[in-house]
């Protein structure tokens, strides 16, 4: 029965478990709205191995490790998420203690991503005054990604329209024009993007040039499929493993204590 459980694991569940495993106790985990996979991940990590993690939703800070389950109401955009609050970041000024964000972890989406992990939420088109696609805007991502210890780029789709050689506009700087000191040269104190996570694969960045590199393929996804759906040359290592499946215990925790309505299974 447990074997069955992991066998029918959805990609969204796989990714939530992958991210959860990568989060460390003591970190501060901030998730914006409409990001169900990171939201599930931080809740799962908190329950499984993060008694000193702090979750930040809608400006409310909480540690709810002791609770039986942490359901996900409306993916962040339901104010009941603040019911467990210990303090509010908006008590004073939301951005008045960014100096301590080195222990904060954050998640961003994007309508375009380039080879160095720069992302775009502004829009698509050559002329800003006449965009072909007007994006939602950058929310707090430029400020957050400037300062947080690390962040994850989490995307709902993996196509050449998303993975482009050059973003039409950059709303968050990943590794700029590339190079291990790219962020330092720009004066950005945060640690930058660690992984880029899509429905097809997980990517990290090369150590020297900070260029996107394939790290693992999700079950059933071929290297050719990823190549075909990426609009630039990914760095491909000699050996590309399959993305590690969640353990039965992780899945059980996820389904029974976090994603109790099965939202990730239906994605």
């Amino acid at each position: 029965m447990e074997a069955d459980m992991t066998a029918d694991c959805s990609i969204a569940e796989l990714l939530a478990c992958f991210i959860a495993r990568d989060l460390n106790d003591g970190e501060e985990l901030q998730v914006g709205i409409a990001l169900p996979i990171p939201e599930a991940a931080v809740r799962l990590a908190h329950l499984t191995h993060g008694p000193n993690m702090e979750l930040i939703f809608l400006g409310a800070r909480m540690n709810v490790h002791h609770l039986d389950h942490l359901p996900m109401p409306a993916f962040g955009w339901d104010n009941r998420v603040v019911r467990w609050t210990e303090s509010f970041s908006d008590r004073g000024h939301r951005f008045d203690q960014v100096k301590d964000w080195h222990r904060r972890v954050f998640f961003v989406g994007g309508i375009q991503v380039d080879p160095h992990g720069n992302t775009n939420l502004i829009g698509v088109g050559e002329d800003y005054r006449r965009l072909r696609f007007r994006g939602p805007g950058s929310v707090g991502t430029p400020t957050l990604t400037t300062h947080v210890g690390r962040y994850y780029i989490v995307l709902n789709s993996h196509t050449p329209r998303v993975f482009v050689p050059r973003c039409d506009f950059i709303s968050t700087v990943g590794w700029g024009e590339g190079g291990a000191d790219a962020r330092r040269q720009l004066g950005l104190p945060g640690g930058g993007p660690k992984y880029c996570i899509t429905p097809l694969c997980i990517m990290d960045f090369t150590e020297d040039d900070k260029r996107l590199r394939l790290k693992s393929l999700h079950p059933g996804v071929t290297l050719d499929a990823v190549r075909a759906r990426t609009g630039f040359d990914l760095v491909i290592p000699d050996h590309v493993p399959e993305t590690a499946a969640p353990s039965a215990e992780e899945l059980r925790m996820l389904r029974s204590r976090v994603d109790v309505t099965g939202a990730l299974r239906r994605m």
Partner: protein
Amino acid sequence: MSGARSERLVDEDAAVALLESGMTIAIGEPTPMALVRQIVRRELRDLVVIASGLALDMLIAAGCVRKTLSYYAGGGFGVPVAPSFRRAAERGDIEVWECDEGILTSGLEAAGKDLPFLPWRGGVGTSLPAVNPDLKLITDPVRGETLLAVPAIRPDVAILHAAQSDAFGNVQHHGGPGWIDLFLQRAATRCIVQVERIVSNEAIRANPWATTIGRADAVVRLPWGAHPWYSRGWHVQDSPFLADYVAAATAAAERDEREALERWLDHWCREPATHTDYLERVGLRRLLALHEY
């Protein structure tokens, strides 16, 4: 002894009378939807707005907006990008002052501090200074670092929704004032707050630390005034109601089918003369069902 303290409690008409075409209006979150609906109803025009979500999209759809200081116009109510915003921005019908939350709050803080600008780091290296020439790159005079200089942002009026106030404008939020409300209040020339209920001055003094705004220029009692948005500590959002709007606005934006949208705006904004008229249309049963907090 010598006169009495003046009340700042006003009725809906008096509150809306403080808003005029051409103003810069900053809209808080939780969203003061009752006042936003009155802006549509009274056909204010050429507004510069600081807003997001439903309020922003509805005001654009109704033709009230000339320019938006925009950090985010998406998510939240079920679409990646607010449909009317998207169409208007792509066609150039509205001007977009592109920013992010940290830049916006820096500009608002500058206004509150009566400074011409404040420096900010978030946005350095991005396209924001290129698409918004008001954001200048500067070299800091102390360590020579590159920063953005964000000019002061001075709204004429901030309109907010909160839990309670006394008659003298001492406002207390429940569960936090939302991420931007206090920035808006501090920066705006005037501040109008719609509240779920009015409490005694003694109730305010019993917990003064909870007072989030000490002297609102006007408070107006508008229970359920954030509907269909949520009201912290009172009710959750009315998601099916939001979905109706999104469907109508999407049809208008993507297929030029404006009929459903105009019907929606007529029914929910233009026809109800008062907030109570609106609530009667929503229906008590529906309102009470949102109270499972």
